[in-house]
């Protein structure tokens, strides 16, 4: 298959960027989107040109490294997949494909399609955990967890921290990311003692990073590669209200 690519090239956070056109030729339909970029890059490298920088690692949809806007959609067409799980057979032969980085104030561009997502780490550092030291845990089966709660917590915990939710949102809000962690821990008995402190600290950190607010339009849920439900945002809001208004 052949494609025309229009790829965002940008040398650094303060450098101007622009769309550059490349031809991707002889691409097998079984190739993933990233493998298609590998082929294009191999051609650039062989000619001594600077290849397109993009982030990737596991290439099986779990590490959360890859992510780019493909024809205006985070991770491209298709539901519940990351960019590395997108295959070229999803496109039409000869199609033009526009590839851009995540666009958000809190995610500055490092180079081309690579952005700095360390804001997510700082939000987790603010409270996205249960404060237990190694060695102080009780016997695992001493606290029973209803299967329904464990399953729901797992649905939320499946977040891979890729940032597609932020990229999809017109406000560049990180609510789905924060909600997934808050909900995962609030749903489990082990997470309840710290629920108040956690939600307040994580929301404050999220605001400090410059993410926008949530206006309930649901783009994040539609583009989340792990199909994380915005019901968790409702859960986050409840946790937040509960923490704000009902002190001990």
């Amino acid at each position: 298959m052949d494609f025309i690519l229009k790829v965002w090239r940008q040398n650094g956070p303060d450098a101007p960027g622009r769309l550059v056109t490349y031809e991707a030729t002889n691409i097998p339909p079984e190739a993933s989107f990233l493998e298609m970029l590998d082929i294009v890059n191999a051609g650039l490298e062989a000619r001594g040109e600077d290849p397109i920088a993009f982030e990737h690692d596991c290439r099986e949809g779990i590490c959360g490294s890859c992510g780019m806007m493909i024809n205006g959609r985070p991770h491209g067409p298709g539901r519940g997949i990351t960019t590395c799980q997108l295959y070229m057979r999803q496109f039409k032969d000869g199609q033009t494909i526009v590839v851009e980085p995540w666009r958000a104030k809190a995610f500055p561009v490092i180079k081309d399609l690579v952005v700095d997502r360390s804001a997510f780490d700082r939000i987790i550092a603010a409270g996205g955990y249960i404060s237990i030291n190694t060695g102080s845990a009780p016997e695992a089966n001493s606290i029973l967890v209803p299967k329904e709660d464990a399953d729901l917590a797992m649905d939320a915990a499946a977040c891979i921290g890729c940032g597609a939710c932020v990229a999809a949102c017109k406000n560049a809000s990180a609510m789905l990311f924060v909600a997934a962690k808050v909900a995962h821990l609030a749903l489990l008995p082990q997470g309840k003692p710290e629920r108040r402190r956690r939600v307040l600290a994580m929301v404050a950190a999220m605001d400090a990073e410059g993410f926008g607010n949530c206006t309930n339009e649901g783009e994040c849920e539609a583009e989340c590669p792990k199909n994380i439900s915005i019901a968790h945002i409702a859960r986050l809001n409840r946790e937040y209200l509960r923490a704000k208004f009902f002190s001990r």
Partner: protein
Amino acid sequence: MDTTLDAKVPSGPLERKWSDYKSTIKLVAPANKRKYTLIVVGTGLAGASAAASLGELGYNVLSFCFQDSPRRAHSIAAQGGINAAKNYQNDGDSVWRLFYDTIKGGDYRSREANVYRLAELSVNIIDQCVAQGVPFAREYSGVLANRSFGGAQVSRTFYARGQTGQQLLLGAYGALMRQVAAGRVRLFPRREMLELVVVDGVARGIVVRNLVDGKLESYVADAVCLATGGYSNVYFLSTNAKGCNVTAIWRAHRKGAFFANPCFTQIHPTCIPVSGDYQSKLTLMSESLRNDGRVWVPKQAGDRRHPNQIPEAERDYFLERKYPAYGNLVPRDVASRSIKAVCDEGRGVGPGGRGVYLDFADAIKRDGRAVIEQKYGNLFDMYYEITGENAYEVPMRIYPAPHYTMGGLWVDYNLMSNLPGLFVLGEANFSDHGANRLGASALMQGLADGYFILPVTIGGYLADARLPKLDTDHAAFKDAEREAAARIEKLLAVRGKRTVDSFHRELGLLLWDKCGMSRNETGLKELLEQIPALREEFWRDVTVTGSAGTFNQVLERAGRVADFLEFAELMVIDALERRESCGAHFREEYQTEDGEALRNDDLYAYVAAWEFTGVGNRPILHKEPLIFEYVKPTQRSYK
């Protein structure tokens, strides 16, 4: 000169060794811990759990990873589960049985005391992870659920859907970020370790490249811990993440750390077959699928009918036929070799005939589609995305692929290498899996090393070590920085015609052919000609675009491939030297009449630990004899 290595295994009965040792090991007083700076490289299960636990204890920890966030380390991709001897199923499990299964699964090439400690700690790991909020699968009663895994006849594997590694890593990452917030751990993401700094024979620091601005940075510490994972990517195509590499441990090896059993590489039986030469990696389908999936090929070579049209009587369920006691749940090495054997007979299926069926039709008939979907839904989805085939209706096609490396830097019982002050954890060390790792044991080992073992043993080292104050102006740091810079300049100066990946692919194919699932003397000797020639061509004709002082992914890859090209030779030398078959190391010359691995305990019951003597020079072999006091090595049988 060859020496015999001392593993410093404590005396006393097996089941008391660790607890007695822990009670008597020297400690660092709480107020003194903050005076020590410790470097941890890698943030997978071993690295993140170690950095978090050391921070909790009060040490000053510097944590490094090449990814943009510690949460992305490759442990995240582990699917199936984690073993623990909880015996929640009342099926006769115990610490002893997990120990025994692991020793046997490793084909009697691991150290008894380490493996027993691992089995002992397995139960604490589950407690710790549950307390952290890891959402393990549960029964309707609210208790934890279990499933079976290869190489075991009990059900002791804990899991979080098909994403157990992800959930355990996020637990460890949370613990790590808590210490970052507390100021006890400083995080250095997007850094690649390029040199280990050794001062007067003691590991005292590292040189890293900042992958954003390309600058070299030096860090000094009282001890260096490497938790940098395995080297399966030496084969180019593997189930590992693209960034996984041998560089950190190879650089440490070049500075004097012994590399143990490099030829022990695990080829995982259940991966999606290769579909073309554009392919960048192979995808694993969790071993847990073998609980319900049945492996088969047509009885007749060249049978090209659609699988659903091949009647039961014309199918060969070869694992069930050859190994009735374990059936489809034989260990990985045994399954992989059997799959290769039926494909070599021309009975393989799919394009190129390199594949076998993994069929869920019986399980779906027995349990219903909903149950299978609940257990493996995400794996079936993944298979569909990659192949476009619906495994609920058509059997999956699988073929073995490089997955895990049992070999790694040599460590003693304290997880310290022969270089004082250098500790090695998780897949990066060689210690617990012998010649073959059982499923669901990698997560267990990474977390045991990081949460429970290193935090104790490193205290013992620090309490006794007399470490002079140092800073990065020391000559050893300046030398290491110069070495790293010179290497980068050399890569950029070649300005040849071939891409980095083309060399990596070629190296991978050579190794896969002659040092993969089976090896023989002729092939290995050919490799010892071919690898140095390829390495020479690399340094003559590779093209590395861009410059040193910028974000440069080609340069990152070039450095890693350069190290793989040196390391591969050691792997082949080790495979050649070990004239026996054991676990994943199958030498065609040494097999039983029915084609099983034939060990030679008289001559090879040792750990081969290699000392670096220069690129292209013959490394020196040091041996750690393996003494079995509690289990008697026997011919491994899963029949």
